[in-house]
């Protein structure tokens, strides 16, 4: 579901996740909504998956629309690691 080098972002609500996806798609940035893995979210939640190479563009777009995620994780060597949310967009 998530390859090494991939990132997932979690949002405050399912609606925020849907809004983020729409904004990014409109901006031509590749992303996909997936079920949040159990290591990062209790119960059911959506996560937005994208490639780390797009992180800068994606956060700039989301910041501009006041849609920044609540948490960010990166997958390396098969494990998801929490990442600091970028502050410079």
């Amino acid at each position, binding site marked *: 579901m998530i390859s090494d080098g991939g990132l997932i972002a979690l949002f*405050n*609500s*399912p*609606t*925020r996740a*849907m*809004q983020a*996806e*729409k904004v990014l798609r409109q901006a031509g940035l590749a992303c996909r*909504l*997936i*079920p949040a893995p159990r290591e990062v979210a*209790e*119960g*059911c*939640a*959506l996560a937005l998956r994208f490639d780390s190479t797009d992180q800068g563009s994606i956060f700039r777009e989301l910041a501009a629309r006041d849609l920044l995620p609540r948490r960010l994780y990166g997958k390396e060597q098969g494990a998801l690691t929490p990442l600091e949310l970028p502050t410079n967009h």
Partner: protein
Amino acid sequence: MAIYLDNAATTFPKPESVYQAIDQALRRFGVNPGRGSYRLTLEASRLILDVREAVADFFHIPDSSRVVFTSNATEAINLALFGLLQPGDRVVTSSMEHNAVSRPLHALAARGVEVVRVQSDSVGQVSPAAIRKAVSAAGRKTRMVVLSHCSNVTGTIQPIGEIGSWCRREGILFLVDAAQSAGLLPIDVQTMGIDLLAAPGHKSLLGPPGTGLLYVAEGLQPAPLIFGGTGGNSLLPSMPEELPERLESGTLNTAGLAGLLAGIDYVRQQGLERIHSHKVALLDHLLHGLRTLPGTRIHGPAMAERNGSAVSFTVEGRDPAEIGYLLDDTYEICVRTGLHCAADAHRTIGTLPSGTIRVSPGLFNTPTDIEALLKALETIIGNKP
């Protein structure tokens, strides 16, 4: 084919695009939006977001997540009132309200909310000065002003922009019941100082029954009326804090909302100005005709420009119910008679207990429909029982 003139109750027929949107949504992705993450449910969720954003854009709502979908305007009003008012709070409303406002306030009064009803004038007009006076009369703060934008009985349009701007300056919440105006008159929640806007999807927004909405301004956090699943944070025993999920438990009406989106698109294509002009022309035709009929009395502004979506009248010595029956039975003309779920309004305009005959043309009515109604009335009134 029947002539339908009860669009204040719900608009009928709908644009063809509304029927098609409902059918296609139900066939193509009639799954549960916001539940799961497979592609079909995401497609349904994307549609819901599109509707939310269309509603936000239509009413100039800055953040679409503050748009909460309900099954009708009544539910939206109940959500706002029961979700925000506490015993000891003071509310100012008018004598022209629909039971969708009057009954929840009556119930809240029994729980200790102080409800002050401002009397309108004889044509149903509520003056901003009277609202200000009612607010100022008490020695304590008023929490909320609740007002219908347009009366469902007389069609009287209230000056909500002026009242809302004043409420905003005074720090008083302003709830607008837009049941008769959403999709007919311009509404801008920002410039009109509206904190809570309740609207049906199935009237002038041209969506199907079973759709409605509540706009909740940033910073307000109504308590939910209904508790249950929201599709996320399932381990949380309480309702989530975030809107719209906090106020949208249970499965949404995806097909209905698809129809609402098509309805809003249709309204946008036509343009509010054109829609309003069409209504004004039909009401003007109706009012001129009614004035020529003997014994007829018009209740309300009796000026098409100020009548919103409906005209109410009575005929001296005749029961409105009987006239409504004859219009339907003999002429297949559908109008609404009686109290229109708004006894307070009828008390105000002096038409209790038998009410009025209400005619509310819609977007698809024509002058020919009005002419047919007037001819039928002429015959009915001429043939006294």
